[in-house]
């Protein structure tokens, strides 16, 4: 009851994001490096409690590429898309199309999206090797398929 009333009141007052805690100052590495990581093998994360990681005072740090990053990672944007859309990506791959799939193809600079979609669909079980597959493993598997 209390939870519902609080929720009502909060929703009433705000339709917007809320953060506790201070914002990050140096966001130069960009948001590609941020992922909502749940536990190992978690397919779908709940995002409550992880929003503070994103609160950055700078609007326009470098958002793509590796400028300003200490640890440059290949395919940072693609990794972030995969990590943060695990469920919907699996659904898109199984259907051979979809927004997440298209965004991933764009991030990997793949022109022939249909061929990419077919490749992933054919290799579904090689990508999602078990029900408890981790997001890291899925990422590596997809990148493996993409590179081939």
């Amino acid at each position, binding site marked *: 009851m209390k939870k519902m009333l*609080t929720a009502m009141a909060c929703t009433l007052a705000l339709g917007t*994001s809320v953060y506790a805690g201070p914002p990050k100052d140096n966001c130069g590495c960009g948001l590609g490096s941020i992922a*909502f990581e749940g536990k190992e093998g978690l397919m779908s994360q709940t995002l409550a409690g992880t929003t503070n990681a*994103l609160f950055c005072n700078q*609007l326009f740090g470098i958002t*793509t590429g590796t400028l300003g990053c200490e640890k440059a990672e290949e395919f940072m944007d693609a990794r972030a898309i995969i990590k943060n859309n695990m469920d919907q990506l699996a659904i898109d791959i*199984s259907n051979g199309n979809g*927004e997440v799939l298209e965004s991933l193809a764009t991030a990997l600079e793949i022109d022939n999206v249909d061929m990419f979609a077919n490749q992933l669909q054919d290799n579904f079980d090689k990508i999602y090797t078990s029900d408890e597959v981790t997001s890291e493993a899925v990422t590596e598997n997809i990148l493996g398929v993409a590179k081939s």
Partner: protein
Amino acid sequence: MGSKLFTIITSLCFTTILLAEDITEKEYIHVKYMESLVKKANEKKLYEKEYWRIIVHYEKNWAFITESQVDDPNFFMSPEGKHNPQAELDATIRGFFLAPDEVKERRDHPLERFPLRFKWLCKELNIDKTKTAYDHPKIIQDFIDDYEPDYIKLVFPSAYINSPASMFGHTLIIIKSKKKTDFSSISISWAARAGADVNSFIFAFKGLVGGYKGVYENIPYYIKLQLYSDMSQRDIWEYKLNFNKDEVENLIYHLRELEGINTDYYFFTDNCAYDLLFLFEAARPSEKMTEDYTTHVIPIDIVRTAEDHHLIESEKFRPSRATQIQQMREQLPPENVKIAQDAAETGDNTKLEAIEDPMLQAKTYDLAITMLKYNYNKRQLMDKQTYQKRFFALVRKKNKLPQTNWQYEPPISPHKGHETGRISYGIQGRNNGHDLLMFSWTPAYHELIANQRGYQNGAEIQFLDTWFSYDIDDNEIQFDHVDFLKVTSLGPRDDFFKPYSWQAAFGVDNEYFKDYDDINYEAYGQMTFGLTYATNKETLVYGLTGFDARYSGYYKDNFAGALGGKAGILSNLNELLRLSIEGNAFYYSLGDEHGRWEVRCDLGYALTEDTEIRTYLSREKDYMGHQTLYGLQMVHHF
């Protein structure tokens, strides 16, 4: 003579010190050229120009004094900047000549912090950029070169039934990159900084009275979508704006100027939505949008304004998971809907696997998967292991089935619904009292009886609904009643969706203790819960039960408290005609013991999008006795 000289010398010193503060405290380059530009700017009276007003957000306040809508001192180059456009302009020009050594990092330099002011002033004054501290704002330009902005989208997450307050909604923008999809582009929205009291009444209360500061945040759109904890329920509207390349650049430049700038959060003035209008005006100054608003801006009004000013090129509807489920169900045979739901709820896919037609099977799998996700994300009906197991069991099989393409029918866009404010006038007849003329005003938002176009059926939120009456015989105007807040959520239940319905209201009501022509008042609060069912797409049947409390000096113990309930029918007889029949009864056993009931019928007819005519008939037993009321009202939304 001596004291006069002393005064002159002291004032001269004082003035010199004041002037000196501006310049000699910090080091500037090309000072003579800088001052010549300041002189030229003042000769041309640039501080009076419309574009300067827009980009520093100057407006006339309630006392007709010019001041910037922004409070944060970091937004101004001059300590007087908030109130003095001229001082701000002079200080801004000087800022471009601040020696680079004077700032810790390049991004803190005024030229970097105010790229739109730099761009505009360079054009107006033909500034020689070889003489300014830098020749261009590198930080923002590097971003633009790297990101390749294409177009801007205005995004509006619309209301959903169990949160009528979500009708107020929220607005954010997407900056689409040529190198990304909409989905993976950045979204810019306003975020409040709440500190430790997130998720408490203190938080809600402070938000109402302006206790929080907020800034803009930059988050990939796909993450922002997930951050709406009610994502499963909320449809999203995306409106593509028709800004050209230069306009998009100016908008981004202005966002950079607002980066990290704190805005005080006031629920009612909702600066976060209002700021967007300044962004749009900075992009397209020929469209005057900020002038349309004074005290409050509800986010959906931003969409209306954008349309009125011809900024919207196209709209896209992004259905919530709940909407997807509802529409998928309509497109599948009932037995397939049942198969999908059973599979989602039990994990037993035998019946799914037995479906013969491959396309029908694929679609049924889609529904099962969507229901499973809804049950997990929104209802948290299972643990993660169970979810993963069921999820993969469905998706691995789906992988081998034909591709499906669902077409989702968008409802009418929320910005095409009636306007948010309302006034009404009409007559009320009473069987045992004088006839009255009735007038009402409310700043927001939507009543159950109002035409539902663009709104959710069964959702209501009314704020400061204020009524006055004019007694024709006594020739007397009096305050009649006010609902400070009334919120209703009648979400229909079915096999899959099982929301609770509720209503909360408090305000000052009229009451009669001696004579039906002698009005008195009572404070009241009411809260009820219950269930609603949809007998068809147009009709809701509901029942609620709860408590009601009344306070008035006329009551024994000044108070009456009741348990009771209400039941009713809400129906769209056709697109324009809406019917409400409701009965309620409350027995006040606490305080001044008495019972009350009411049976009421309302009929509303929409003459235009924003005009309605309504009639009602009510029979009630109140504190004093019985009354029959009937009336006719003209309603205007504005």
